[in-house]
């Protein structure tokens, strides 16, 4: 009996250990490991969607969400926005040209995260051809092309914001891949961006079959638009015009107008026929703008000079109301200078989105941008008259009126300045202003630094302006410093000499 008991106990022990099959299995129970992923075409598709949704990430701690970065980098140093009463000290420092490397808004981490997702897909998706017979070469080309386009867009933001940045083209898949990497010259980065976009272009579809996907994923036209912008930045005007023409001649895009409300179609509903590429926020994934722009808690508002100096004041002594459709009720609310594009719920500037409705899309490119990029390029090619015709299309759609200057279609420099002003009106608060001003200022080896100085004169408080002017005269100051954490963890990085 005693023996039987012992045997039973032993057997039970032996059996119980063997029945626990996963005892030595180290795989995580709540995720998928790399070896099991990248097997089917559905997983490739999920990888692509993952890239897009990484762009919707929120800010947490020192990791600033991509959209918040795009807004801040593109607007904070320029003259369209002023900090609201909830703006943080770090945000005020950016506005005042007092940026230090420990300013968290200089953190590029989230953009490199998206870049790594792109790199991973570009590296691993080709292997799926072996494991999934239903995955075609064409599908692979499209997936890789989408990843390359998004990667190019991210690098384009980085190169415009930081100038020289590390160019990482291979994936970081495990901890063993982490290695310090030095900065690449801005020209090398721009060359890579152009190569990527050129390679991606033939692989991208003209349409994904529905409106939301056509605007929310990169089509061939999105690649053309980014490429046009890159060519404009690198002062290759003929190439820029060629890319713009591809979009214009497709006849798939047009300007919202003809009685339709610009605000309702472009910003309130989004994904309009004017749009080329925009980030898709929705009820489940809200944008960061409620906390940034809502009048009761706002960190950012429109600058007070916008109505009388940018969009133009109406002469109250005439009966007819002259109003630029892009001003009041579209870009901003006149009474308290709330940035209306992202927070408004109607075009009469009376009703504001509620917190759970804060999902206005972030527009990267739209047709108006293509027309104005083309105008800028052909003006640089000494065709100011042709350029003025394109600008006129934009102005007529917006019912713009002359209030302090008229368009001089005979002068190249006059048109250059006018196009810059028109872009200011057209893309108010769309994260483009600083890049527009910098692009025009740095053209022909900083021929027009005064554009930047004018912006500084408008936006910087009087008691800091003289210092800011002298800072702006140092070209290195036009680019942000590398965030301190990156400097500490990647010893090969060299700080921008302005931030010593």
């Amino acid at each position, binding site marked *: 009996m005693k023996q039987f008991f012992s045997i039973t106990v032993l057997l039970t022990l032996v059996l119980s250990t063997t029945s626990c099959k996963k005892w030595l299995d180290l795989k995580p129970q709540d995720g998928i490991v790399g070896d099991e992923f990248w097997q089917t075409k559905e997983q490739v598709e999920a990888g692509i969607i993952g890239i897009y949704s990484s762009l919707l990430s929120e800010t947490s701690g020192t990791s600033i969400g991509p959209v918040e970065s795009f807004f801040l980098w593109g607007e904070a140093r320029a003259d369209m926005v002023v900090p609201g*009463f909830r703006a943080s*000290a770090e945000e005020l*420092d950016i506005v005042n040209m*007092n940026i*230090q490397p420990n300013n968290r808004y200089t953190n590029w981490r989230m953009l490199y995260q998206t870049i790594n997702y792109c790199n991973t897909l570009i590296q691993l998706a080709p292997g799926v051809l072996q494991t999934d017979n239903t995955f075609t070469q064409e599908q692979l080309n499209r997936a890789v092309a989408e990843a390359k386009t998004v990667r190019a867009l991210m690098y384009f933001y980085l190169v415009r914001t930081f100038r020289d940045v590390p160019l990482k083209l291979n994936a970081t898949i495990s901890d063993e891949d982490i290695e310090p990497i030095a900065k690449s010259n801005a020209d090398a980065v721009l060359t890579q961006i152009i190569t990527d976009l050129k390679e991606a272009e033939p692989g991208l579809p003209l349409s994904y079959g529905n409106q939301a996907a056509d605007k929310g994923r990169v089509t061939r036209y999105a690649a053309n638009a980014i490429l046009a912008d890159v060519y404009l930045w690198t002062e290759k005007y003929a190439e820029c015009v060629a890319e713009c023409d591809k979009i214009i001649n497709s006849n798939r895009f047009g300007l919202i107008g003809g009685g339709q409300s610009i605000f309702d179609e472009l910003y309130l509903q989004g994904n309009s026929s004017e749009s080329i590429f925009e980030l898709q926020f929705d009820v489940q994934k809200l944008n960061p703008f409620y906390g940034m722009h809502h*009048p*009761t808690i706002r960190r950012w508002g429109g600058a*007070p000079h916008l*109505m*009388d100096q940018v969009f133009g*004041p*109406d*002469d*109250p002594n005439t009966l007819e*109301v*002259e*109003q630029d459709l892009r001003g*009041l009720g579209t870009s901003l609310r*006149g*009474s*308290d200078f709330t940035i209306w594009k992202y927070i408004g719920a109607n075009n009469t500037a009376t009703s504001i989105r509620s917190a759970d409705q804060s999902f206005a899309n972030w527009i990267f490119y739209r047709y108006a941008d293509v027309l104005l990029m083309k105008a800028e390029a052909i003006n640089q090619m000494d065709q100011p008259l042709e350029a003025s015709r394109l600008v006129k299309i934009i102005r007529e759609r917006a019912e713009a009126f002359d209030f302090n200057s008229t368009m001089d279609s005979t002068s190249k420099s006059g048109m250059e300045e006018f196009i810059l002003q028109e872009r200011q009106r057209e893309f108010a608060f769309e994260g483009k202003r600083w890049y527009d001003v910098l692009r025009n200022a740095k053209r022909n080896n900083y021929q027009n630094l005064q554009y930047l100085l004018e912006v500084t*004169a408008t936006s910087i408080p*009087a*008691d*800091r*302006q*003289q*210092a*800011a*002017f*002298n*800072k702006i*005269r*140092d070209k*290195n*100051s036009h680019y942000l410093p590398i965030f301190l954490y990156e400097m500490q963890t990647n010893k090969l990085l060299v700080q921008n*000499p*302005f931030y*010593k």
Partner: protein
Amino acid sequence: MNRNVLFSLVLSTILATGLLLPACKKVEINPYTTEDVNIVGYLAKHPDSFSLFKQILDRTGNSAFLNAYGAYTVFAPTNSGVKSWLAKNNAAAVDAVSMDKLQDLVKFHLLVDTITTGVFKDGKLPVATMLGQYLVTGVGMKNGASSYLINRQAFVTQSNVIVGNGIIHVVDNVLEPSTLTIAKQLEAKPEYSIFVEAMKATGFYDLLNTVDPDTTKRWMSVIAESNRAFADSGITSFDALKAKYSQTGNPASPNDSLYMYMAYHVMTGIKFLGDIITAPAHVTLQPQEVISVQYKNQEVVLNEAEFNGVFEPGIVLNRTGSDNAATNGVWHDAQAHYTLKYRKPTAVFWDVATFPEILKMPTHYKRQNFTWTRQSESDQPLQDIVWGWGALAGTNTMTYYYNSSSSNSITGRGANNFDAIQMPMGLPNRPVWWELTTPPIVKGKYKVWICYVQRKQSSSSNQLCQVSINGDVMANTMNFTLTRPSGTDAELEAIGWKRYTEGTNAVLAGKLVGVYDFKTTQRHTIRFTPLAGTQNDNYLDMIHFIPIDEPQYLPRFTSEGEKIYQ
């Protein structure tokens, strides 16, 4: 055998333990929580750059306290900077410089606060150095790169080095404190000879040549005029200046216009340009006279104003020649000659419904109503119209009211421009006061008329208000719910009423709240405080400030905003 085995085992164990023990290294425990050095430690760590400055600190006995707990900011000059300073002072080494001079030097490089470059402005730092003088910051260009410029003497080559007891900014030159007073500095410059002579004649030279040991009284700011500025106004010598202004013949008398001219150029307190532009007006030593300040096209402009539709161009302060720090203050250079101006008191017919914010709203100004709401207690949506927080959100508002319809019973009755501002007020829930900033008013005695459109929210509504200007309560109250009594203009004026519009409806009422003696020529504040009753429908249209010796009930205003004299 067994024993031997046991023995060898024990032995080898002992041997092995013996051999192992020395191999077991002692773990070093770091008793410090941080390896951050203090200020002196940092300087000692970089002898290539700072050995000379450290030597100065050692010699003056400052090393000990700069290495102790505290919060300091040090501008640390590099060795090359100290060397060129020594060469300038004909000293071979640090030991050859006098102790006093070294001590002053160290004190001038030290601030008892942690100041990062983030708070650097165009002007002085918020705290003085330990020497008592302020440092001036700016940004300058050197070899195509810009960097912070301290006291116009040294560039910051490395900023915001954070150490255990403060912050170090490395500078490429030694900062030298000023040793002269304002008076002496100006005297040393021949291009200010006329101004200096005027200073001496009026007795201001002595005032500006003293360094008061009491720092609350020490600082003064002077706006100096160069001989060229005088010459541009046709004054080529001190005699010409004296002939022009000194009507009593004794410039030292406070009643003499030359004395007043001088007093008008001196302010108390240390005011760098960066401080001057942050306030709209500054009081001068000439009693009741202020200089107004504007910032236009990146220039600091004094005394530019529009009085009665006449534009008076201002005086620009020359930026490069200004912000000159002295031991007892700072002086600036004016590009042109100016003095205080006698202005005759002039009536101001202030249309309160024309304010900057509404002018920027073309769809509403002279077209339709618009309401501003205070979203929170920290929020004041308008620049020149502010109000005390009311508990009720719905009435925490200011409405620009416009209605030109003849059937409208408010502004439609013929208010100036058919518009007014609506100011809900009264305890317990509505705004508890309203305060408006007037246009510039020339100093003098004025009668103050509150012109409003009478309205009662309900038949029992009452809104009795006290009016105060610059905090002084006016003699009479006014009530937004009272209509204008009937009577001839003369009869009405005798009892403190007038009809201020072309329209004759009794709801359009002007009420005299009293006489006010404005002491200075500038913008003033007027405040409405409800005494009894509460309602939303208080429609304020205009406020008239009319000199006491001028006719009071004319001109009147049409609904197009024009003046009529009948």
